[in-house]
């Protein structure tokens, strides 16, 4: 399976009914495809909408209705539009249940760096710092390595997004949970051994004696 689709299918299981969810641009957006349609989940986009729906049919796009990446979306019945101060009030004020973001690095303390590579790629933090600081749960959806290098590091060398540790990291190899004792390997992807995860990870992992296989959304 494509690594990104696999990650999205695992993250989808973290999205519970009757919650307010923010999906970041890129990989996290794929998660919406695997969340059951019959449960009440509201997707929030920080550019100012609660109740965002899927991409509209071609030719029926509304120019004034997009997600945070500028892509056309729809609004579901009961959707609400917000200005930017209200939108971030939801995020910072503890009203957002889950945010799913991409990552460049996660360190042994569970801290995320995802907005800048000094001297090279300066995207800007956009809403990421507010999301990681304020959402009730922060899930990082990222590939385990980039160009052969582990994205898990002892201490982030890239600028941090927040001091707050994230809640969960899902990669194509594993599910890793930052806990007081360190990064704990809680699941491995189908066909991946705990040793393979350890080998692909450039910081200490706490590995329980038995690590279950990652379940995936249909």
């Amino acid at each position: 399976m494509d690594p990104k689709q696999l990650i999205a299918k695992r993250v989808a299981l973290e999205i519970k009914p009757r919650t307010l969810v923010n999906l970041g641009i890129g990989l996290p957006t794929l998660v919406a495809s695997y969340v059951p349609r019959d449960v009440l989940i509201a997707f929030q986009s920080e550019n100012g909408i609660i109740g965002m729906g899927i991409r509209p049919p071609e030719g029926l796009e509304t120019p004034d209705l997009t997600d945070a990446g500028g892509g056309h979306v729809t609004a579901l019945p009961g959707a609400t539009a917000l200005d930017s101060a209200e939108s971030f009030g939801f995020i910072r004020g503890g009203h957002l249940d889950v945010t799913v973001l991409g990552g460049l690095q996660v360190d042994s303390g569970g801290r995320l760096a995802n907005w800048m590579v000094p001297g090279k790629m300066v995207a800007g933090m956009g809403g990421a710092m507010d999301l990681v600081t304020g959402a009730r749960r922060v899930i990082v959806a990222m590939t385990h390595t980039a160009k052969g290098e582990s994205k898990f590091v002892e201490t982030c060398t890239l600028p941090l997004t927040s001091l707050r540790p994230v809640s969960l990291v899902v990669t194509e190899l594993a599910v890793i949970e930052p806990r007081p004792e360190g990064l704990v390997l809680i699941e491995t992807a189908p066909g991946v051994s705990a040793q393979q995860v350890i080998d692909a990870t450039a910081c200490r992992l706490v590995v329980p004696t038995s690590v279950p296989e990652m379940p995936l959304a249909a």
Partner: protein
Amino acid sequence: MKRATRIAEAVEMIPDGATLMIGGFMAVGTPERLVAAIAGRGRRNLTVIANDSARPGLGVGRLISQKCVKRLIVSHIGTNPETQKQMLSGELEVELVPQGTLAERIRAGGYGLGGVLTPTGVGTLAAEGKRAIDIDGQTFLVELPLRADFALIRAAQSDYYGNLVYMLTARNFNPLMAMAATTVIAEADQIVPIGVLSPDQIQTSGVLVDILLERRSSDGSETADRETRRA
């Protein structure tokens, strides 16, 4: 009742070196006619406060491509390689602000507050040079208000008083910026008679709007003489 101001006249009011707040998020909710006209006039040394710099040649990106901007205060530049290029070469000074903090700094500027306290950015690069305050054991950054000489606002509808209604995700920073600038210039997709918009529906009071841009002419031109068009 407001007079419909022609775009050339509105742009003439904006001098080189002015500080502009420009509504929009990835150009959605950005007053494109105004921004295009400013870029077309080749204004220089502007300070621009906006959510992002969109893409080259689009929204705020038009001003970047034309090198109108000296200083940019935004949350995100990742979609505009031209902004990154000018920043890395030192032509353009960029202050990156977390998006929620940017919204609150603009709100503080417009609402008469001395600043806001936010937990966002504590311990990161966003905290550099800022005061931090501990309240009941939690650390907050002191974020100072932002104001501008001009706010460039885009609305879906305006009535003759300049009362504004926004549409869906095109609202974003527009109502906040309309409170935070000395002169507010509004560009509306549609202008309707007074009374069409109900008091509960109006999102920005026309009291704030100094200049209401004339409607887009039916042939799309900006400079056609009004008398000629009427004939």
